[in-house]
């Protein structure tokens, strides 16, 4: 039973449930990578560095190797001595070694790996590995990193095949991992035009993705081919990386990906696969590595960030200049940080029409757990800064934050921060609806009863989807008229497989049960860049539609012979090709396939978006289209304790064409849960490089009890649009500033550092205790 009603795409016979595998999921029947059991499979455990920054002096695994039940132990130095493998990986810089060879760069950096007949034995073996470390000065904060007293990576970065459009700008003898620049207009002139200039510093901490399923894979070697079943969002990127490590053609690596138990960006690029593959090679057996939750915490995080933002406005409320300096803490290894700083960096331009923008965005190495892709991809950090600052400016100048936004939001055709014109602009519609749903009133800032005070906050954001990018799909139409889609899209709970089946099936007006779709298998399913960046429904969806469209044209050619009519007079209807409007003159797809003696009709299509930015100015095509969202929150603050309750939340997002309404809503609700957790509770707390809350008892995400009693969603559709806008992330970044702005409006306390804890609010109340203008008193 689905809680969401099924829907039928207009003009088709298709009935679409919320999600194809919902029933299986609820009954626990979905197979995940961790369910794979292979004959002779053994289990891996990693020995991790207890130090944030330490030179590996010596490592002796002989006692561990002697433990009965241990099949193999490998150490970093073992790998350094092998010339048949290249022991480095990383999507841009190959700065991460499969195991620590020279020095450990964060607490949790793996230095040895054990494979044993069971987990207890593997765990016991870890205690028998003797390691001598020489501690080095750790780089624990942004200040440490910039002071460059200690350097996380002493050697210049090892580059490898990577994104065609990546701009690499590193500095020797520094902890700057990469630098992105944006120069639009003339920043001096811009500030010269401004009547008021505001400068503020915003920070947000590293947080966790918390997928229910932690990273895991099984690897084995079969006739010289490396096989993996892995929970990854990017099978092709992982394949390329493993081929490079083992110095074999990509055809010698085969990766299959079952359903994932959530990803949120954590499972992009190689993570657990390289070390597992090496263990499988050394032992000649299938090896499973499945991280514990505690290990998951130090595997990948959201970037901690500091943004200094300076914005100039004119007396009549126009923003004329913005200068941002962004530091994204990428931790010990770059992962995708060198690229993410671009999106986070130009992201600070916001959804506003600003003629003069200057951005320096840096990825910075520190001795903390590596940071990488995280739902929102740098935009959450940027939006926390600019949407908070919008309200701060409005407050200082006595303007209504709603009007101030309306005055500056981009209109159709106006240039975005990368200089390209904004098409299909809906920022103002989204904001207007958000204000209406939350009951925005310019004249009432706060409503107080007793020791509780309520206030409302708004925000609007813009987000890019990875551009340029490529997806490809193959389709087969069988002799019974059923359609098979071969795609490398990863199903991770977002319903990719349902949506792609719909998008493919509707082209031929099939029923959903006539369409099937594969999981990724790099030997058989065509290339896809990865299931990330809210790109799948649009990018893979386009490839699937193009391929099925090709099949349709093949069918028309066959039917044109068969029915003796011109192709232009044909249409598809319920699994048959018919003469337009004349169902009596029709032929079934299966009949056409059989008559053609083709066995099946085949088609393949590639969708590649174009774009890229100028390395010096950051101007060009930043996104194939721009994702747009708004948020509105109403909070209640306890003035005695500072505790915040979010009473109402409204999320608005522009979807272009909605491919699946139930899933679009669920993605948006999921974003609210993510956003409120980051607004109010989430933060990885370090002390001297040691993570203090690396487990789910000490690290808090929202529970269902914490969700607002009232949630409203506005997934905006433009019916005439065929363009699908990804919505998997877009409604997340507005949450944090919407809540921060609501807290400010209620209490006059402005929090610049996430999360907005009761203690920070109480300190603020004690410090400024500013009487609020326009507070309405109501009787409790």
């Amino acid at each position, binding site marked *: 039973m689905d809680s969401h009603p099924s829907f039928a795409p207009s003009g088709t016979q298709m009935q679409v449930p919320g999600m194809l595998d919902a029933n299986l999921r609820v009954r626990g029947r979905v197979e995940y990578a961790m369910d794979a059991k292979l004959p002779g499979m053994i289990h891996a455990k990693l020995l991790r560095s207890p130090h944030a920054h330490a030179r590996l002096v010596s490592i002796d695994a002989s006692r561990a190797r002697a*433990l009965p*039940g241990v099949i193999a132990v490998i150490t970093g130095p073992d790998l350094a001595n092998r010339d048949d493998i290249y022991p480095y990986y990383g999507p841009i810089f190959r700065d991460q070694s499969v195991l620590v060879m020279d020095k450990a760069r964060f607490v949790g950096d793996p230095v040895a790996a054990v494979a044993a007949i069971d987990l207890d034995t593997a765990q*016991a073996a870890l205690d028998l590995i003797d390691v001598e470390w020489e501690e080095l000065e750790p780089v624990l904060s942004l200040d440490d990193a910039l002071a460059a007293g200690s350097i996380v990576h002493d050697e210049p970065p090892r580059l490898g095949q990577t994104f065609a459009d990546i701009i690499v700008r590193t500095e020797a003898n520094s902890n700057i991992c990469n630098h992105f620049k944006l120069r639009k207009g003339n920043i001096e002139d811009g500030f010269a035009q401004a009547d008021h200039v505001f400068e503020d510093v915003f920070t947000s901490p590293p947080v966790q993705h918390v997928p229910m399923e932690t990273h895991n894979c099984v690897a084995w070697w079969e006739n010289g081919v490396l096989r993996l079943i892995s929970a990854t969002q990017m099978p092709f990127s992982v394949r390329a990386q493993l081929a490079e490590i083992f110095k074999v053609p990509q055809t010698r690596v085969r990766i299959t990906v079952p359903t994932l138990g959530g990803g949120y960006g954590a499972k992009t690029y190689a993570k657990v696969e390289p070390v597992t593959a090496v263990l499988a090679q050394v032992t000649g057996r299938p090896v499973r590595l499945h991280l514990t939750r505690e290990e998951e915490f130090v595997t990948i995080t959201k970037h901690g960030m500091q943004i200094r933002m300076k914005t100039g406005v004119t007396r009549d409320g126009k923003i004329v200049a913005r200068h941002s300096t962004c530091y994204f803490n990428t931790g010990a290894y770059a992962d995708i940080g060198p690229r993410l700083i671009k999106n986070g960096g130009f992201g600070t331009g916001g959804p506003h029409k600003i003629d003069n923008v200057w951005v320096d965005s840096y990825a910075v190495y520190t001795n903390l757990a590596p940071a990488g892709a995280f739902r929102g991809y740098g935009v959450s950090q940027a939006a926390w800064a600019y949407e908070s600052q919008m309200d701060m400016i409005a407050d200082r100048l006595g303007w209504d934050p709603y009007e101030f936004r309306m005055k500056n939001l981009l209109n159709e055709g106006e240039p975005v921060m990368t200089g390209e014109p904004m098409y299909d602009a809906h920022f103002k519609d989204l904001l207007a609806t958000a204000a209406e749903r939350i009951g925005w009133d310019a004249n009432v800032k706060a409503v107080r009863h007793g020791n509780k005070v309520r206030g409302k906050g708004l925000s609007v954001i813009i987000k890019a989807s990875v551009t340029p990018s490529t997806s490809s799909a193959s389709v087969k139409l069988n002799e019974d008229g059923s359609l098979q889609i071969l795609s490398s899209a990863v199903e991770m709970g977002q319903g990719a497989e349902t949506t792609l089946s719909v998008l493919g099936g509707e082209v031929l007006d099939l029923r959903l049960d006539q369409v099937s779709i594969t999981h990724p298998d790099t030997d058989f399913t065509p290339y896809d860049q990865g299931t990330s960046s809210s790109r799948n429904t649009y990018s893979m969806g386009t490839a699937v539609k193009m391929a099925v469209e090709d099949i349709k044209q093949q069918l028309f050619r066959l039917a044109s012979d068969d029915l003796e009519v011109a192709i232009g007079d044909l249409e598809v209807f319920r699994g048959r090709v018919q003469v337009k409007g004349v169902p009596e003159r029709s032929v079934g797809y299966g009949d056409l396939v059989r008559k053609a003696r083709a066995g099946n009709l085949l088609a393949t299509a590639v969708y590649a978006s174009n774009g890229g930015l100028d390395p010096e100015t950051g101007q060009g095509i930043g996104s194939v289209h721009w994702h747009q969202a708004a948020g509105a929150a109403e909070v209640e603050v306890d003035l005695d304790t500072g505790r915040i309750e979010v009473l109402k939340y409204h999320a608005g997002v522009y979807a272009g064409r909605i491919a699946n309404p139930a899933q679009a809503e669920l993605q948006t609700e999921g974003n609210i849960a993510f956003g409120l957790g980051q607004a109010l*509770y989430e933060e990885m707390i370090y002390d001297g490089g040691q993570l203090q*809350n690396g*487990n789910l008892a000490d690290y808090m*995400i929202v529970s269902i*009890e914490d969700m607002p009693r009232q949630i409203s969603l506005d997934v905006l559709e433009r019916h005439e649009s065929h363009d699908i806008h990804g919505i998997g992330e877009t409604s997340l970044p507005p949450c944090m500033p919407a809540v921060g702005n609501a807290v400010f409006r209620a209490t006059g306390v402005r929090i610049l550092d996430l999360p907005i*804890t009761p*203690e920070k609010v109480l300190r603020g109340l004690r410090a400024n205790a500013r009487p609020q203008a326009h507070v309405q008193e109501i009787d409790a």
Partner: protein
Amino acid sequence: MPEPLRLFQPTSIEEAVAVLAELGDDAKVVAGATALTLLYRQRLIAPGALVSIGRIPGLKTIEVVDGELRLGALVSHREVELSPVVRESIPVVADAFGKVANVRVRNAATVGGVMAESDYASDPPAVFVALDAVVDVQGSNGKRSIPASAFFVAFYETALEHDEIVIGVRVPVPPAGTGAVYHKFVTRSSEDRPCVGVAGVVRLHADGTVADLRVAVGAAAETPQRFWDTEALAIGKPLDADLIAQVADAYADQVDTLDDMRGSAWYRTEMVRVWVRRAIESAAAAAAPAR
């Protein structure tokens, strides 16, 4: 291969105690296993043997006898929360257990477990301390009873000897007209442990003066904090805002608050002040019939 963990499943208290006496510190009692599993997985404990007490009969009672609510050590949090006997006799006990974690944890966690664990950030201990509960324990030397206020000694440390197990908790049913409340204050998710938790018990004379006032503060320091001298100052006085503020300030002054991710020591002191006041106010409101 590593030494396998030994598991004992005794069917009587005496048998359990005998195993504990024999194995000493190497053995750990396990009841609902909600706390123990975490400690074990995080390698904070490494016992050689587990003594599971789940098969011992007679430890699941919930009854009122001689003016006391008796809870057996193996009664689950969820059972306390839903028990009509508890709800009728001392509703605040049901309420406090109902505020622990989430329903999944409450279904497994036991009364004996929460006592023996002595985690500073648990909810039920403060309520037991405020209500003058008594913990019944049994060891090689037989049974003894320890007042709840003396049972919690320090972080994760109780008055239990290593061969003793908790067999139950007895809570005197307060006289009719007593108001008792437990306020759990969380600073993060609603499933978090408390930043502070305050149990307040109030009984008033017909003229509005205080007949009985008891306050215990949990999660703010190593063990639940109760200040009998401060309580005594209130007896016989009219329970007005000034008196309540005096008691709240005195608690805030006396609790040596700790610092953790849920709040700094400064913040906790302020929260003790707020929540002691609120606990007394709401306990007084619940005690209202006399007024």
